[in-house]
């Protein structure tokens, strides 16, 4: 987990790796929009399984699957459990009582802990949503060179500085996680146990102890990286090489993805018009039924 190589993109010879970064990003956008727009657990589950399948196609390594599994498990159960316990919307149905409100201590303090079915379902939907996004996000991170992302962002007219910052963030996020872990280890080696007490002063001191080395390291890294990219001619006002035009089939793929997004959005609008009692078209009953059951 703390091995940062697990986190960084590696080139490989799979369709996902070979895919043009623009198509990948378009796909990611489509998946994200659907993940946000879809409400039913069924299509979300389908989307989730599809995005997991992409990792098979990309032949993600065992370690990566391990990482993915840990994150998904934590996310899935964490969201479901917490939503199941703290769902505060109505209607809600208790399906189990973990701690009765009459239990001395915990029961009185928490007012009882129950599992709510709607919460569980809402949690499942949320977990599938974020799981899908996480899976796709990691897929992109693992299969796409940050430099290509940069190229793509610039191709799409993102301010060059912002694009650069974004990929720097992405590039160094795993490194920073790794270093945070090392810092805690190093502190233990020096005899410092951050978790031993909960006093606020100690807490702040711990914060200092963690931030000092990480930030100092970041500052040094920033200095070196900046010098390195600048001395390689990276900067404003350069006539950068543009991405080549996409080959025809890939252009079609791009158009196809956008068409899917468009169709999804249109269906959504039509359904919500009906749902909110604004407009109902009897001819579209089949579409409505499909939406009600599947989306």
């Amino acid at each position, binding site marked *: 987990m703390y*091995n940062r*190589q697990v986190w*960084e*993109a*590696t*080139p490989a*010879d799979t369709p996902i790796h070979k895919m043009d970064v623009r198509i990948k990003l378009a796909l990611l956008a489509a998946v994200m929009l659907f993940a946000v727009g879809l409400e039913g657990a069924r299509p979300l589950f389908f989307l989730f399984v599809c995005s997991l399948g992409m990792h098979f196609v990309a032949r993600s390594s*065992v*370690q990566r699957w391990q990482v993915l599994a840990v994150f998904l498990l934590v996310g899935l159960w964490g969201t479901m459990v917490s939503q199941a316990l703290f769902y505060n919307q109505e209607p809600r149905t208790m399906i189990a009582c973990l701690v009765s409100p009459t239990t001395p201590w915990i029961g009185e303090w928490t007012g009882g802990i129950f599992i709510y079915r709607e919460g569980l379902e809402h949690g499942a939907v949320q977990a599938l949503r974020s799981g899908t996004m996480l899976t796709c996000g990691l897929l992109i991170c693992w299969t796409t*060179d*940050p*430099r*290509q992302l940069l*190229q793509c962002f610039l191709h799409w007219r993102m301010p060059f500085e912002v694009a650069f910052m974004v990929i720097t963030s992405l*590039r160094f996020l795993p490194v920073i996680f790794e*270093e945070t872990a*090392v*810092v805690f*280890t*190093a*502190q*233990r*080696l*020096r*005899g*410092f146990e951050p978790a031993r007490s909960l006093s606020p002063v100690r807490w702040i001191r711990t914060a*200092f*102890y*963690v931030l*000092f*080395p*990480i930030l*100092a*390291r970041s500052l*040094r*890294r920033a200095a*070196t*990286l*900046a*010098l*390195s*990219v*600048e*001395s*390689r*001619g*990276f*900067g404003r*006002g*350069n*006539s*950068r*090489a543009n991405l*080549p035009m996409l080959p025809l089939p890939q252009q079609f793929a791009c158009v196809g993805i956008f068409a899917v997004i468009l169709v999804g959005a249109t269906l959504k609008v039509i359904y919500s018009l009906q749902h909110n009692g604004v407009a109902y078209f009897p001819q579209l009953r089949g579409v409505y039924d499909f939406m009600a059951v599947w989306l």
Partner: protein
Amino acid sequence: MGVIVDCRELSFTYQNSEAPSLQEINWQIESGDFILCTGPTGCGKSTLLKAFNGLIPHEISGTLQGSIQINGKDSLQCSVANLSRTVSLMFQNPDDQIFSTSIADEVGFALENMGMTPVEIQRRVAETLAWVGLAGREQGSVHALSGGERQRLALAAVLAIRPQVLALDEPISQMDPRGAMELLQVLRKLNEEHGITIIVVEHRLHEVMPICKSVVVMEQGRLVWQGSQRDAFCQPEAFLRLGLRIPQTVHICHRLGLAAESAAVDDAAATIRAAYPACSTVVQEPLLLQREETELAIEVKALEFQYDPAGRKVLNGIDLAIPRGQFVALMGNNGAGKSTLLHHICGLQRVRQGQVKLLGQAVKGLDRRVGMVMQNPDLMLFKSTVEQEITFGLAHGLGQGKQSGDWRELVDRIGLGGMEDRFPLALSQGQRVRVAIASLLSCQPAIMLLDEPTTGQDLGHIDDIIGLLQEYTQKGGTVILCTHDTEVAARYAERVVVMTEGKVVADASPRQVFSCDEVLRSASLRTPAALQLSRRLYGGCALGVEEVVRHVQQASMGSYAG
């Protein structure tokens, strides 16, 4: 050959600093030169390099006086991007520079910035990779590269621009000898075959000096010595005075009052033989002082480890017994498993297979009796002053009955006297390593493990550190020092353990280990030059400069006497 870099009265002061970092530099660099620029830490070497490609003053704020012309263009008038096509800069740590995941992308980055077409880029990338010895590996992952290869990739990334001048800031300081050698060979080839002017800033001049053409020494922002490689060999005083580490052959010649023609062992031997004809007399080598078998500090039995079940074994059946009070050098190339072994000993890594005992007890979790200095000491420092940093362990009950005044002596010994109130993380790298060592030593743990502490240190500071550690071993402490530096190991260690691919391939006194060429070759270590020279001169097995000098002098005296 014209002047490609021309500095006139160049002075520079950083924005937040009072003292100038460069003072009235006058330096004309001829095209096609291969220059070693050296000097003690903080002398302004790196600053000068940054001035060459316009990072100073365009990107780094400060006050610049004088002028600097690159290829006839005033650097003040040109942008960094423009200048970087003439002068390319490469840095110490490849991991902070490498940006992409595939080799071709990394090399192509600079070319894209120049606006080249993809076809051109592809061709140029292939060509550049061939230059640095990574031909045909375009599609490989940067993570699959070894440390040395990664540094060469970083080199290729700047070379792709086809700069006229290549400036390298401590390119080999963190590399193992094999990697360093390979990189330097590439540099030599670039210089010779492609006529690229090369400027290397480096502490490890004993490795760079033999291949460079001219040498520059800086001190406190000024150029204090300038000359050809030959001049440098002849006049090593300038280097020795500043605590710089010159090739041992040159050093020996110098000590014997001779002027070395080159750093090569054969040349030195010839020179010495000419002056001291009797030096070939075999003198009885002092035997290694055999220590009495005392209590074992560290006992490792059949230790095996692998990160993932399918992967290779990082540790493959390590057996090691280290008695108390021993100073052990742990050597081997990158990836031999040295750090992993240290992690097992200090309890950072749980023992899965085999056994590790400290002072007779099996290791369970992080062991407080062990002090460990990690490879990157930055991540070990977290207090806001050097004083707090060093006394932290004492304050947290790690030291056993230490006097609170002792740490001051420690600070002085590591050359940080007067810096007690400085922020440790803002110190130079060498200083940070020393603070980290001192912060652990102050608690007097039973065992000290040090992972590459000599990186980026001047010779003097290495002496300081080792001196402290030796004192510590005399008091009964045990030291394991990981290092690539055979000269350091030869000089100071009582025992050398060499690891290759997770196995211990040699475990004996330095003399025995360094006499065994196959072992060193297998571990891609270099035989110390002094040892080579002594072997050549008198079939001996000397471990340091002093030993050779003493031998030659004694033998000569003996011959005069006899």
